[in-house]
Every structure is written in C-alpha cells, then in structure tokens.
C-alpha cells in the first residue's frame, strides 16, 4: 500500500519537475514583458530535438547538450529580434499572438529539417531503476528533479541579487519608469528570450531519455507548463515550481487512485478552482491598481 503511494509520488514528481521547468520559462518572459510566451513548449522541443540531431552527428553527448542549449537560446534571440521587437510597443495581446505564430514556425521548421520521427537520448546515468521501499525510480528522474532545483536556485539568485535580474523585474513592473532610470528595456527583453530559450532546452534535453522527443511534443508540455505557471502565480519562480510539482503529483494520484480517464481533466479542474478563489495563483504577487 505504502509502496504504491510512493510509486505514484515518484511518478508525479518526475513529471511535475518537467512541468516546473516549462513553467519557469513562462515566468521569466512574463517577468520581463508581461507576455505569455506560447513558444515556450517549442523551446523544450527544440532543445531535445537539437541534442538528438547533434548526438546523431557523432558529437559526444555533453558537447551535443551544450550546443543544443546554445542553439535554442539563439532561437529565442531570433524570435525576439525578428518577431517581437519589430512589433514595437504593441499591446500584450498582439505580442502573445506573435509568440503563437513563432511557435508554429519553429515546429514547422523542425518538422521539415529534422523529420517527423520520434527520437530518444541515452540516459545520463544508465537505465537501471533504483528501488526504494518497494517503489522504483529511474536515475534520470533524479537528474530532472536535481537540475530543476539548481535552476530555481540560480534564477532566485539572478533576480534577487544581480543588477541585471533586478533590471528585468523593474522592467516588468513599469517599463517607462525603468527606461527613465537608465535600464535598456530592449536588451532586457532580448535577454529574457535567450534565457527562457536556454532554460526550455535544458528541460527538453533532461526529459528526452525518459519520454522521447518529437517535433510535436512541445504543444502538450507547453500547455501543462502554462497551467503550472498560472497555478503557482504567473511570474513567480517558486510558484512555477510548486505549481509544476503539484500538477504532476495530482495527475499521478488521480490516475492511481481514481481513474486514468480523469487524469488529464484534473489539472484543468484545479486551475478553475484556483483562479476562481485566488485569481493571482498560489504565489502570485498582489497588485494594487491605482484608480
């Protein structure tokens, strides 16, 4: 009985950690621009696919991984430079729609250049499952959870302790005021896309050995990541992680104890409840509108 619960928990935390990584990407760009970047799922996909393609060229895995992260960061940069920036001071909604367009372009390009097949990466530390109190866990799951924890800590340091990070937060709060105190808001936005692109790639690469990767994997992960980000409170790093893990565990518990048929409905029920009672999410910043 206990081992069963533990197994559900492991399953939930592994999946939840991938949701959390996706949600963090949403949080960064939202912090910098107030835009919800619907191309985030494609960053995850691009990272995984690029790593697979580079490894297939014969590059050692670590090199392929670093290059794939760089490629995806570059993709983020290009999207910002050629899709977001030309829109100038457009409202948030048109910008969101631009990101949807960008996601379709990325998905299409990958489909054409890297094919429609499903690919896998070798696990970083072998495939031998670890047995813990009657439940099993793949070493790759520990990688996912571990790296997610490191990323969260790094981001917390970046936003809380560095000038650049603080500049980003300032830009999200008030762009005009940020410009007036000498922050280059344009470069802040650029940086946010590069950062979330690279972050997405890390997530995509980490989960590729567990879940496989294909040109269309970004849609569902992006959606779940968005749900996790909203659940935790948009823009909050801690919220993104808690939201992601909560979502993953909830799905696993639903599949295990109720029925797998309801698994995918649960997160959406949960998000309706949360948004109804706590519209800013679990950890969302309180905003005060001056009338």
């Amino acid at each position, binding site marked *: 009985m206990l081992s*069963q619960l533990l*197994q*559900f928990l*492991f*399953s*939930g935390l*592994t*999946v939840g950690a*991938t949701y959390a990584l996706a949600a963090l990407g949403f949080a960064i760009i939202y912090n910098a621009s107030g835009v919800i970047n619907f191309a985030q799922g494609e960053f995850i996909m691009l990272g995984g696919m690029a790593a697979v393609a580079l490894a297939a060229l014969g590059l050692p895995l670590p090199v392929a991984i670093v290059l794939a992260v760089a490629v995806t960061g570059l993709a983020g940069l290009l999207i910002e430079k050629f899709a977001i920036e030309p829109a100038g001071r457009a409202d948030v909604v048109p910008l969101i729609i631009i990101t949807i367009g960008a996601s379709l372009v990325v998905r299409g390009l990958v489909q054409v250049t890297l094919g*429609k*097949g*499903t690919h*896998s990466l070798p696990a970083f530390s072998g*495939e031998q*499952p670890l047995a813990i109190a009657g439940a*099993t866990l*793949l070493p790759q799951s520990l990688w996912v959870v571990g790296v997610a924890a490191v990323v969260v800590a790094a981001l917390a340091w970046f936003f809380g302790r560095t000038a650049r990070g603080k500049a980003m937060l300032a830009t999200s709060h008030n762009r005009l005021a940020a410009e007036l105190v000498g922050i280059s808001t344009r470069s802040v936005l650029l940086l946010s896309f590069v950062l979330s692109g690279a972050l997405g790639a890390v997530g995509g690469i980490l*989960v590729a050995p*567990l*879940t*496989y990767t*294909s040109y*269309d*994997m970004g*849609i*569902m*992960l992006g959606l779940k990541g968005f749900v996790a980000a909203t659940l935790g409170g948009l823009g909050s790093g801690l919220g993104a992680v808690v939201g992601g893990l909560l979502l993953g565990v909830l*799905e*696993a*518990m639903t*599949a*295990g104890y109720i*029925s*797998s*048929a309801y*698994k*995918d409905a649960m997160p959406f029920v949960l998000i309706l409840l949360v948004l109804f009672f706590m519209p800013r999410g679990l950890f969302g910043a309180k905003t005060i509108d001056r009338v």
Partner: protein
Amino acid sequence: MKKRTLITSAIALVFAQALPAAAQGKDPIRIGAVLSTTGPAAYLGDPQLKTLQTYLAQINQDGGVLGRKLELVHYDDASEAAKANGFAKRLIDDDKVDLLIAGTTTGATMAMAPLVEKAGIPLISLSGAVVVVEPVKKWIFKTPHTDRMAAEKVFEDMKKRGITKVGLLSETSGFGQSGAKETRAVAQKYGITLVADETYGPKDTDVTAQLTKIRAVPGIQALFVFGLGQGPAVVTKNYAQLGLTVPLYQSHGVASNEFIRLAGKAAEGVRLPSPALLVANALAANDPQKPLVTSYAATYWKQYKDEPSTFGGYALDALMLGVSAIKRAGGTTKEAVRSALEQTRGFMGTTGQFNLSATDHMGLDLSAFRMLEVRDGGWTLLK
C-alpha cells in the same frame, strides 16, 4: 498540393520513346488520391504517396494498364478529415478521376463516404477502423487490417498459452479508443476476462501510476497495450522500470522498427501482431507473401533510402487491387470496376491475401497477421 502533372509529364518526357505505341494517344486512366501527407497523420500518408508515385511510374514504364497510362491526381488533406470531402468533390467533378485511393485516416474516409456513394465511384480506403466497411457501403473498399483483427490475433495467442485474465491499457487517441472498444467486444469470444481497463494520453511522459495500479490487480496474467507511436514505448519502458513480469502484448500500432529503437532493452519479450512486411526477411522461403514483400521493401529502399512501412503497403495493395480490377473489367466503367473489385479472390498483397465479396469489402482474415516477439533487439516469428 497538386502534384499529378509533375510525375506524369516527367515520365512522359523520359519514357516517351520507350513506351509501346499502344500506350500513346489514348486517354490516361486517372486515379484520384486524397492522403494526409502533412500534419499529425503524415507518418502514415507520406509513405503512401511515395509508394503510389513509385509504382505508378513503374506501371507506366511497363506500358500502362490496358494500353493506357496511369495518371495520379493527388491532394493533401493535411490530416484534417473535414478537408477530405472537398478534395473528393474536386476529384470527382473537376478532375474526373476513374478510381479513388483515398482516406489515410478513418475520419477522412468517413467524411468522403456519402459523396462517393452518391457519385458512384469506386473508392479504396487506406484507413483502419471497422466502420469503413461495416456496414458494407456499395462503392467503398479498404486494404488495411482492422483493429478488431489485431485484438483477435492477440487473444488467439493468449488462449494458446492459457491466459485468461488480461489487463487492458489503451491510448486516448482515436486509434487506441477504437482498438479498446473492439478489444472489449471480442474478449469474451476467446474466453478472456479484462480485469483492468486503464488509459493513457498519446503524449503522456509517464504511465507508472497506471501500471502500478494494474500490477496490484489479483490474478492478472498478461497486459495488452493498444496505442500508436511513442506512447507504447513509454509504457514498455515504465513496465521494465517497475519490474513487471506478466507477458506484455502490444497492438499492430507499434509494428515498426522504431518501436524497438525507442524502447530499447525494455522491448525484449514484447509480443505483437504484425503484417508480414516487417519480417520480410524472416519469412519462410515458401511463404506465398515472401516474394511480394521483399520486392516492395527493396523497391522502396532503392527509391527513398528508407524502410518501407506497413502504411505504404496499404497504398500498394490498393493500387494493385484497383489495377487488377480495371484489367478484369476491361476498362474504367465505374460499375464494372466496382463489381470486379468485389469479385477479387486470392489476390496476394503486402497486407495479406484478399478475398473480397459483396458482403466483405476488405477481404482479409487473421492469417494476414503474424505474431512476433522481440528477441535480442529484433523480431522473431512465433509459430
């Protein structure tokens, strides 16, 4: 989206000299195709179009059919069933095709069906579900096996091994749900009780929760997974992770080398029903299907440097069934072709032996499937 002229004109240019005089000056036989060569079902539709193009060129090179050349008019429905209907209308009204090879997916086929029935033009579908030919529609035929046959083949093997209590884990995709429905429907016929009935999403990244639940069911003797693409590979990996020991059966949805590549070592011991194409080389030398499947595999490899898929084989069978019917009908009169199709007997295709009749517009039986087991990273035929 329209690609007919390219192929035919290229062939006309290159082979005009070589063609027998009879093939020139007569109207070509026009074959209309609506396939899903882009979108989610592209991995099905893409090899189908390639197969049609390759074999059409070959037939024309050999002098065509009844002294007439074949011409392919092709539209891509982009995996959207709703679009298929419009293209079928265009093929019938504007392109005036003689035969339709159309419908990569069941949805697309069913969307075209009413129009095709009204227009009275023979259509050979490449989609899987039973509903395409049951109840029988006068003008509609199909070449792929049905999901019900896959379930029956699996149950046949289970019965032989004395397995009676089976857990079902199906994908929430159209393929998985239709398969699960047929599985539930035929289980009793083979004396099998479904002791668990769980689902997973096609893009799910972890199914250990479902498997843990299934493992806890008392007396369970085997697990049957009905899904397509990467999902079943995730299931297989999780199954190995949890150390489950009951035999694992998969459906024909994973009958491709990609499955072994994705699932790796975890795939060892997995059993599944598959068309002969996948094990072309392992077939006995006297197997009646062997020459056909090996030659298809070789032709496809030569042209595209890629392994042929079962899905492409469906298109080849459709084309050859159509050609054979046109030959026997002595022309392209629609009713004559339709009734010739219906009278097809003992026709050997890549999918199996077709014996069509007025009440069976598919004409395959369970012998079209072979039971395979994954051993040492390859497929082994089970007796």
